[in-house]
């Protein structure tokens, strides 16, 4: 009894450090972007009076509240709020900045506001304000999915707002293409590594592992050099007189899918190989001795048993592809960028952390859901756990 107790205490003591670091440096940041994706504090905390007055029918009361709020912000807070409102409606930024600078001099009535800048007459600006006064917002998710509530409050997909949905569909499509290609190309390699002679399988395993551990960036570099218009492939084809003008091989879907397939190939091969190694050779021999041809034996005896590896390999590649950023950024065109690219753009270019977080949450959720589905399928179809 005492010994078991001591083991438990030791476990707890040992876990204190790693758990603290994990929670502080990893779990907390992930949770912070979940909250960031729905957080609206930057607006709600700054339009305090307006959020009380917005429901009132008295226009002048609303105008006075707005002016009071704008006057009580310092220049930096006002600029930040203006930037966020501008993400909702173009032109709002200059309206807020200009009005804010003069807030104390403007007559605190609706007429005064409109006299200062006629844009305040338009309903659109007030609608955006009233939608964004709560401390909690779905607007980033609405933009990410394209589904917005209409006047009746029902969610509807507006025309032209489906850009991120299309990007997500594109991400899934590219991931699927890459997964299928890695399986097709990887299967013979996995087969040879599992069933070939000792030297052949050793060679293949070395090559696959080497590829696995060579930086993604290095392998992408190789493809950039290969696929350029005056790159190796085009020069070869031109020298062989197969083509007369260089082909466009890079900065399009072809370049993206080919380089991603190469980068992810080891992830498909290794699980397939592990499963194939467990398939007993005696079964194949038995089938052959019963008179089945080698192709028939392969299709009816070997292939079905290797399917588990195919699913694990393909699933791994598919899930990893979803989050790809570097390779498409270097070998794809604007029409081939995946969700990750837009997440990075939102952070780097437009400082829109809300959208970046919302898209990150969606990406993360899709990965988790797919993993759970995969785990469920594995449990459903039985079979031993395959170590990838």
């Amino acid at each position, binding site marked *: 009894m005492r010994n078991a107790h001591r083991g438990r205490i030791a476990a707890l003591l040992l876990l204190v450090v790693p758990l603290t670091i994990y929670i502080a440096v990893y779990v907390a940041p992930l949770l912070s972007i979940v909250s960031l994706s729905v957080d609206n504090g930057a607006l709600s905390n700054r339009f305090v009076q307006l959020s009380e007055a917005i429901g009132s029918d008295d226009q002048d009361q609303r105008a006075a509240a707005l002016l009071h709020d704008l006057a009580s912000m310092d220049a930096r807070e006002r*600029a930040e709020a203006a930037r966020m409102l501008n*993400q909702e409606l173009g032109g709002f930024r200059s309206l807020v900045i200009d009005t804010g600078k003069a807030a104390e001099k403007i007559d605190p009535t609706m007429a005064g506001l409109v006299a200062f800048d006629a844009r305040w007459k338009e309903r659109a600006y007030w609608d955006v304000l009233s939608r964004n006064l709560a401390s909690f917002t779905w607007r980033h998710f609405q933009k990410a999915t394209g589904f917005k509530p209409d006047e009746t409050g029902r969610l509807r997909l507006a025309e032209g707002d489906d850009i991120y949905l299309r990007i997500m569909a594109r991400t899934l499509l590219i991931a699927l293409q890459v997964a299928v290609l890695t399986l097709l190309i990887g299967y013979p390699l996995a087969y040879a590594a599992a069933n070939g002679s000792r030297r052949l399988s050793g060679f293949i395993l070395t090559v696959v592992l080497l590829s696995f551990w060579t930086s993604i960036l290095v392998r992408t570099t190789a493809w950039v050099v290969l696929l350029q218009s005056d790159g190796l492939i085009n020069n070869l084809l031109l020298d062989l007189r197969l083509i007369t003008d260089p082909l466009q091989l890079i900065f399009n879907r072809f370049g993206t899918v080919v380089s991603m397939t190469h980068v992810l190939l080891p992830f498909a091969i290794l699980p397939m190989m592990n499963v194939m190694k467990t398939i007993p050779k005696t079964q194949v021999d038995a089938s052959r001795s019963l008179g089945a041809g080698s192709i028939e034996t392969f299709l009816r005896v070997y292939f079905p048993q290797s399917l588990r590896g195919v699913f694990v390999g393909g699933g791994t590649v598919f899930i990893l592809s979803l989050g790809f950023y570097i390779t498409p950024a270097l070998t794809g*065109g*604007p029409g081939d960028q995946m969700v990750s690219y837009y997440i990075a753009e939102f952070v*780097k*270019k437009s400082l829109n952390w809300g959208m970046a977080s919302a898209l990150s949450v969606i990406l993360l959720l899709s990965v988790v859901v797919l993993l759970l589905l995969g785990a469920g399928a594995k449990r459903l179809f039985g079979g031993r756990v395959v170590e990838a």
Partner: protein
Amino acid sequence: MNNITKLLLASSCVFLTAQAVQARDFTIAGWGGNYQDAQREAYFQPFADAKGLKFIETTYLGGLAEVKAMADSGNVTWDLVIVEGADLQLGCDEGLFETIDWETIGGKAQLNSHAVQPCGAGNVVIGNGFAYSSKAFPEAPKDWSDFFNPEKFPGKRGMRNSPKMNLEYALLADGVPPEKVYEVLATPEGVDRAFAQLDKIKNLLQFWEAGSQPVEWLSAGNVTMSTAYNGRIITAKSEGRPLEFVWKNHIYNIDVWAIPAKSPYKKEALEFLKFANSAEPQAKFSSLMPYGPTNLEAAKLLPAETLERLPTGKNIADALFFSDAFWIDHSDELTERWNNWSTR
């Protein structure tokens, strides 16, 4: 336990050395490439030599993410950065850049009025137009309507993947006079009109991200025409590449030096601005890199054949000054529409 103690000790050593390194030199962030090479020769090195200062350089890829991160964390790692006008304006409003006392850096009078900003000193005038491969067409394209005319001038076109300037180009091609472009673009009909022009060449477009790509693509024959910075094309042409830049109705903008807020080298950075505003180094820079000076006297120090390569004088007679104010207000919605259009 002993081993773990050792590991902890080793790791704390790593942290300590890491901290020590952060006492840093004067840091300048630029756009890289030949541009920064010329800046080093004309500005950085002479300035550092004169002041006995050690400096390091880094590349900046646009946007405000880095500067904002510095302001938020208080760990200011840049002392000077050369930004586009829109980012300067945004950053200035949000307090990300130091405000400048113009009297201490040589006064406003010596500069082009567009270059005088509350948080920055405009330094480099850049021409944005289009270039073509001189081998591609029997008759040279002359203006934007030629760029948007695939029947007369066949072949792929390079274009930066952004609505900025491209919408203006489209309106210029559609016959809108330069002085009316932003007026038209501010209306929904004007935006539709610009996209309708772009639709005409949409299936010929290939988007570039880095300023070096148009040069590479034009030389390799990937595209026959491309929007481009005048500097990249003219430099490549002087190196013997068969390229021509079209000055007609180009759009010019000014890159601005700004000082990230709370830079520990603010004093030195202001001295740098004073130096960078003066005529001699600007003339030197323009002779190295074909971008225009903002100092009004600098052109007088340059020979005529250099001036012909710059977005100054007669080259900007019919040019349009890029409106940062317009794009600050409309960038979000137009970028979204652009992405929607370009990925469809």
